[in-house]
């Protein structure tokens, strides 16, 4: 469990390091899609942590959920842009709610584990 957390933090640091050092700068037009995709990814990761705490962690579900959520969110935003609807708001709300739910679950789990 803690090895997993360590590896996750390590991977995050590595990704951030790469992201800040690659010479490619995301064009302003795509920043919106990327932001929604990043939110979806964040949600997926927290969902994975929650699943791990529930001992329900499944590698396939985690990886596929991560990428499909991110792509779906970005695609939804793109379609919304084309249709003239701020569809990315739906993604933001949905993933935001789930993010807080996951965070709340993780908090409760940690508290339970500590004070039991």
């Amino acid at each position, binding site marked *: 469990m803690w090895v997993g957390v360590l590896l996750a933090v390590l*991977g995050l640091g590595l*990704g*951030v390091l790469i992201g*800040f050092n690659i010479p490619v700068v995301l064009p*302003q037009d795509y920043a919106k899609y990327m932001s929604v*995709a990043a939110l979806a*990814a964040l949600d997926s*990761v927290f969902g994975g942590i929650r699943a791990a705490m529930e001992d329900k962690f499944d590698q396939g579900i985690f*990886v596929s959920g991560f990428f499909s959520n*991110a792509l779906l969110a970005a695609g939804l935003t793109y379609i919304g842009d084309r249709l003239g609807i701020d569809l990315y708001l739906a993604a933001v709300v949905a993933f935001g709610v789930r993010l807080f739910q996951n965070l709340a679950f993780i908090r409760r789990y940690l508290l339970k584990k500590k004070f039991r």
Partner: protein
Amino acid sequence: MPKKNTAYLSIMLVTAFMGLMLAVQFRAANRAPGGIPTDRAKEMMTELKQVNHERDNLTKEINDLTYKLNQLNKGRTEALNALNSELGKVRMLAGLVTVTGPGIEVVLDNPENGGKTTSPELSFIQDQDLLGLVNELWGSGAEAISINGQRIIATTEIRLAAPFININTTRVVPPYQVLAIGSPDSMANALELPGGLVEYYRDIGFQVTVEKHDDLTIPAYAAR
């Protein structure tokens, strides 16, 4: 254990990817502080379109005005040319320029031996005779006339002053060489008409010769 290892690997991969996304997004969002809101960008796009349209219109207007200006300039040069040619014509009519061209030369002289008529006044060329000749020449299409080098203009007088004739206040003496530019044939025909002026003068006893020339030069009026 290998399953656990792949799980760790996948976790690391996914978190690394997320970190990459976050970092890229962070940089993109930080690049232009605040960024340009989409609405503002759209507004500016429409503004740009409008300004471009306006510019196109103004370019069209420039072309239009340039065309008009050219037309006006052309018109001005045309008017200038017309005025210049008019001026030339008027100067020629006023006798202020030397004229060359085809014409006739009429030489008029007094009778050789006092004439055969009785009256001495009639046997000498008088101012009326020259006036009549000039009048006849004008009437038959002369464009410019001179007598003994004196250009005949609108204010030219031909008058008897004692025994001489004054033209342009200059004394002229026989033989009188009258040059006229115009159609040589029509002028000569008018003069030599049967019963015409030349015949009449010859009857009186004047010596008259009429010659056609292809190239005559009549001097300009010498103002004094």
